[in-house]
């Protein structure tokens, strides 16, 4: 077990992240993203369950199944997310930060934390679909390009979290 190293300076990490985003603009003419990758995986799963032909007829899923069931597996965002996981793993491993744990606030049990995580994830899944993106795709990528909708998303996302924070104290404090 390696000794745990401290986190990097947040501004440095941020500049690094910004340069990665810039590289994405330069190399592939698009930014980063995450929720879209999840949507592709969801579409693939639905296609497996329902059959690709039937799934591709659904207007919600059609954009993700252009090449039938192979599409989500060759989707740029899905491949990117695989990279994200590997990058996160290697960084955590080298810094002695990988361990099996249910991270939670000091006053919350593990089961409650998992339940909250699933619930929070569901809200984010819904919100990201409506907004056509998440903090990576809209806030970061679109925000850096001054996209109007992205900034609307940034404002409402942070406002919502701050307003509701007092009610969620039990989760984190």
């Amino acid at each position, binding site marked *: 077990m390696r000794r745990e190293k401290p986190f990097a*300076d947040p*501004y440095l990490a941020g*500049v690094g992240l910004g340069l990665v985003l810039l590289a994405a603009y330069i190399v592939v003419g698009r930014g980063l993203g995450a929720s879209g990758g999840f949507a592709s995986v969801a579409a693939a799963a639905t296609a497996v369950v329902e059959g690709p032909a039937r799934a591709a007829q659904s207007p919600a899923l*059609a*954009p993700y199944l*252009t090449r039938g069931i192979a599409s989500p597996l060759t989707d740029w965002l899905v491949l990117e997310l695989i990279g994200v996981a590997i990058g996160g793993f290697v960084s955590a491993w080298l810094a002695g930060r990988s361990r099996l744990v249910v991270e939670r606030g000091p006053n919350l049990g593990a089961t409650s934390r998992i339940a909250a995580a699933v619930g929070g994830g569901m809200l984010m899944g819904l919100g990201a679909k409506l907004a056509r993106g998440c903090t990576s795709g809209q806030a970061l990528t679109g925000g850096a390009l*001054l996209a109007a909708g992205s900034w609307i998303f940034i404002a409402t996302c942070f406002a919502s979290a701050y307003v509701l924070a007092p009610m969620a104290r039990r989760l984190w404090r």
Partner: protein
Amino acid sequence: MTRMHRALALLAGALAVAALLSDVGSAGAAASPSAPVNPANYISAPDLASRVISQDAALIVIDLRSRQDFDQLHVAGAIHMTLDDLDRQELRRDARIVLYADEARAVKGLRLLQARGYQNVAILRDGVYEWITRVLEPRLATDATATERAEFDRAVTLSQFFGGLPRSDVSRAEVARGYWTGAPSSREGSRELLARQAIAGIRRRGC
């Protein structure tokens, strides 16, 4: 660490201020890539089809997509060019030019030609997707309104000229949506996908 932070902040501030100052030097807002297109520079697929049918001698339709896409299916009579070609080619000054590709590239082409002094340039607003769904393969829903029927009738005439395949009595879900039905046009995703699917369908029929 704070000295580094200060340096970064200074760099960011300097770059931002310089950005504004560089505006004063160049054309500024008009040159901004995100300046919206004047609606007068958009043309709809039915209007373009009418122009092609009328055999307007001054009409030049330019496909700015990839060579592969062009070879698969293009607007009747269109020629293929890359943006670089467009920049270098001398076209007749009184030409009525229509460009199409995905929106970003088409707008780039529009700006390019305008900067070179061409007055009469338009973009086929929803590209090949619109051409297929409003001219080649128009569809009429079973629950269509009178306006939709009228538009469909016009489209059938156009479609026959290009050897297309109109279809009536389809379900509402199979009728294409786009800016002309009040729905938003997707930049990527569904519009490109639907165009590809439609092209694949047309090619399967051996047209």
